[in-house]
């Protein structure tokens, strides 16, 4: 019985992430519009886009291969699994131990791998631009992310997220330099990974500046829908990571009962909203940088992460 409940909760989380993701995207877009004194679309616009895309037929480039058609599903499932394995409103769920933080990072890597391949598949120059730049950025972002993971796991003694979250709730964390460094690293990585300003502009279609958009240029219909959905899931994932690591308050623990779960959900949504607000604020306040300054940006993130880890390695023995 309890087992079934656990399954249910896990399922709920998966659905919840799936449902909330477009909303988050819409929320950020709306906020940005507001901040720019525009009226902007409604919160539900992303849902409308998705349903429309889903219903349209797919126009497939002549030179596209089976990989091009499989990739969206792969990308979507990888990111969705990652998103639903990270604790959102409750920690210690049934399958949280399936993948720890490293595995989640790697799952995102899988998604990126296939996205980049899809960009190369049709054999257009823009796809190539997108893929190569994406991989360059990732080659720095992923280590930075892993350094952040090191920092956490050195503190919490584990790389498993709900355990980390539980640890961060305990008193003996205190304020640590390395945590701050890790937070900065994570934020920078999140910005890069989700193709936000200043690394990339999700709204642009000016060929030479786009990275993520260039890869998905050839996609249409349901494929595009899946990829858009995956993108917003990814954003959600990063925000919930930030939430459960650096603001783990109010998360329900496994088997806490329905009310606790609902409360958890409410707080979770609030966290997302706040995170989205910060992101929108940040994006509207700075300009996009040249592609070949990105490596310095990401290098900085990597250095921050490494610094945090080093501090911990050393301070452990003090």
């Amino acid at each position, binding site marked *: 019985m309890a087992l079934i409940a656990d399954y249910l909760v896990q399922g709920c989380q*998966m659905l919840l992430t799936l449902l909330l993701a477009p909303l988050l995207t819409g929320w950020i877009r709306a906020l940005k519009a507001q901040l720019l004194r525009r009226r902007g679309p409604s919160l539900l616009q992303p849902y409308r886009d998705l349903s429309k895309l*889903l219903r*349209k*037929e*797919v*126009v497939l480039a*002549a*030179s*596209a*291969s089976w*990989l091009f058609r499989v990739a969206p599903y792969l990308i979507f*499932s990888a990111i969705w*699994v990652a998103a*639903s*394995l990270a604790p959102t409103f409750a920690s210690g769920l049934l*399958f949280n*131990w*399936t*993948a*720890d933080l*490293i595995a989640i990072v*790697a799952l995102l890597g*899988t998604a990126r*791998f296939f996205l*980049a*391949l899809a960009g*190369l*598949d*049709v*054999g257009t*120059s*823009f*796809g*190539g631009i997108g*893929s*190569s730049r994406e*991989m360059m950025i*990732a*080659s*720095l*972002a992923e*280590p930075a992310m*892993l350094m952040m993971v*090191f920092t956490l*796991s050195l503190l919490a003694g*584990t*790389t498993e997220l709900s355990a980390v979250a539980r640890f961060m709730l305990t008193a003996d964390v205190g304020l640590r330099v390395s945590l701050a460094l890790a937070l900065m690293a994570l934020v920078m990585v999140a910005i890069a990974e989700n193709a936000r300003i200043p690394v990339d502009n999700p709204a642009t*279609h000016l060929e030479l500046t786009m990275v993520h958009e260039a890869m998905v*240029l*050839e996609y249409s*219909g*349901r494929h595009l829908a*899946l990829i858009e959905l995956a993108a917003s899931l990814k954003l959600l994932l990063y925000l919930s990571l930030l939430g459960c690591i650096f603001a783990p308050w109010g998360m329900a623990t496994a088997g806490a009962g329905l009310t606790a779960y609902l409360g958890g959900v409410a707080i979770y949504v609030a966290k997302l909203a706040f995170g989205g607000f910060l992101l929108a604020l940040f994006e509207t306040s700075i300009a996009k940088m040249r*592609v070949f300054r990105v*490596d310095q940006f990401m290098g900085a993130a990597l250095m921050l992460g490494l610094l945090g*880890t*080093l501090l*911990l*390695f050393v301070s452990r*023995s003090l």
Partner: protein
Amino acid sequence: MSLPLLLGLLLIPLAASVYAVAAARQPDCSRRVYGVTLAVAATGLGIALAHLLTASTPETLKLPLGLPWLGAHFRLDALAAFFLIVVNLGGAVASLFALGYGQHEKAPERVLPFFPAFLAGMNLVLLADDAFSFLFAWEFMSLSSWALVMAHHQDPANARAGYLYLVMACFGTLALLLAFGLLAGTSGGYDFDTVRASAITPGFAALVLALALLGAGSKAGLVPLHVWLPLAHPAAPSHVSALMSGVMTKVAVYGFIRIVFDLLGEPVLWWWGGLVLALGGITAVLGVLYALMQHDLKRLLAYHTVENIGIIFIGLGLALAFQANLMYASAALALTAALFHILNHSLFKSLLFLGTGAVLTATGERDMEKLGGLIHPMPWTALAFLIGAAAISALPPLNGFVSEWLTFQAILISPELPQWLLKFLVPAVGALLALSAALAAACFVKAFGITFLGRARSPAATQARETDRYSLAALFVLAALCLLAGILPGLVVDGLAPVVSLLNGGARLIPQHHQPWLTLVPVVDVKSTYNGLLVLLFMALSGTTAAVLIHRLASSAVRRGPAWDCGFPDANPAFQYTAGSFAQPIRRVFGSVVFQARERVFMPPPGDLRPARFKIELHDPIWERGYAPIAHAVVAVSTRFNYLQYLTIRRYLSVVFGALVLLLLGMVLWR
């Protein structure tokens, strides 16, 4: 009982070699030879597997061969059994592949006699239990593989590769020879039991470690001893490249493990671990950076071998560091990670090289810039290659990720190490490892994307056909194994346990097979867990459900059209991104530092009909700073000495006279 069986088994490939010398020109000779090697390797695999799993005590055997007063000692223990599995698995699959691939060989008489000998040599290295037989087999392995590298010797590049390879191999053997000289001592106790028993001073032990690093490292391709590897591995026929890259480098690692972990024994000094760790990290990153700069598919793979060797040595270095501090539980984790990665790399590197072989037979091209779009004519090869690429890029749920995950876990439990240097070194190496993993992903997006995706860049690529069924079978066996090892890591870890406990003073990881859902739980108190099986299930589930739902509820219509490409579709495949242009951002970020990469653009003025040219200059720092000077020095000195060949007789007489007078004076002064 299984040891004599194995040794007897090894006679068969040698016989096959002899047969091949006689009958290489006959049409079905290649099929026969590879059939034999396939059978032999499969049997050997079975025996070794049985021995490893039934986990009996080591078997030893002494034959009246080799050094007369010593005899040839052989021994089959868990370590040897594990590496026998790696070797024979690779050998079996390569033979299977060659059943089809070998038909296209232009010079079978230069391949068939040496392939079985090569296989036998590698097996013999693993079974040898005294210094002489070990080095004998080791050098025999080098020699036979050299012959295979020289198979297509009419291409001067291959000949050069073969020469460099053999000289480096001889260098490595001599280093190991010196190491064994120290271990055996003046009494000449060359059999490994005596060596294990005899104590050795710390200074000598450190020397042995250094020599083992030189000897085994030069064969495994440890930076800066790797220079021969990316030349020699691609030069050989592809199934041999697969063996050399996927398997022979592992035999080299075996040599290192056998000497340092087994023969040298206690005491281990902490800085050994540091040294090996640092070397591993540097090797990993440099290897992948070199690989990113390559356009030759096989050479790219060879450089990735260097990278993976680095990862393996990171694991070994951690294990040494832990053992030095008597933290055997942690050492067990690190060792498990290293051994697991050894197995994984042998799987996917063989897979990738064999895939390249398939491409090579289909198009006759190794240069990625001339390939492209091969996924259309050869979808199955593409699929297998894709799995291999994903595996080597350490993507879940495949096997490459598991071993890297284990290595990360080993790094994460290392802050307990007391030494300060290690405290700084380990996280830095962790960063290097992460970096190399990410770069590897980038590199294989390039390798697969440019080779198989897009549109064909040359007529050869357009006329490609799917490869034969033997080759496909070989490819998919390996692909399946990559997936299995990825989703059932617990079983592999349990299989490795006897090896680990052998090398680690009895300590091993906790049994995994009765964990719920076969989850991987390396260390209990650290609650980090990973479950590839579930990840795969979830992904499959969500992916299929999404697909089904969409096709049911939403549209499933597809219309083919020209690529959109922001409105100006380019007809010409030459407009595609090439390997060079794909690597350009990373080259700008890293290459400018490491390789002094410069881009020279020649843009003719308007009205000038010359084509615009774009050239990339790369410098290999290690070759230019390390090896070229030595070569020049030898040439210079020998040229300097050469005049001694043309003296007048009077001069020669004077030399003798001088020697005589000198010795007489010496006699006078000696008193």
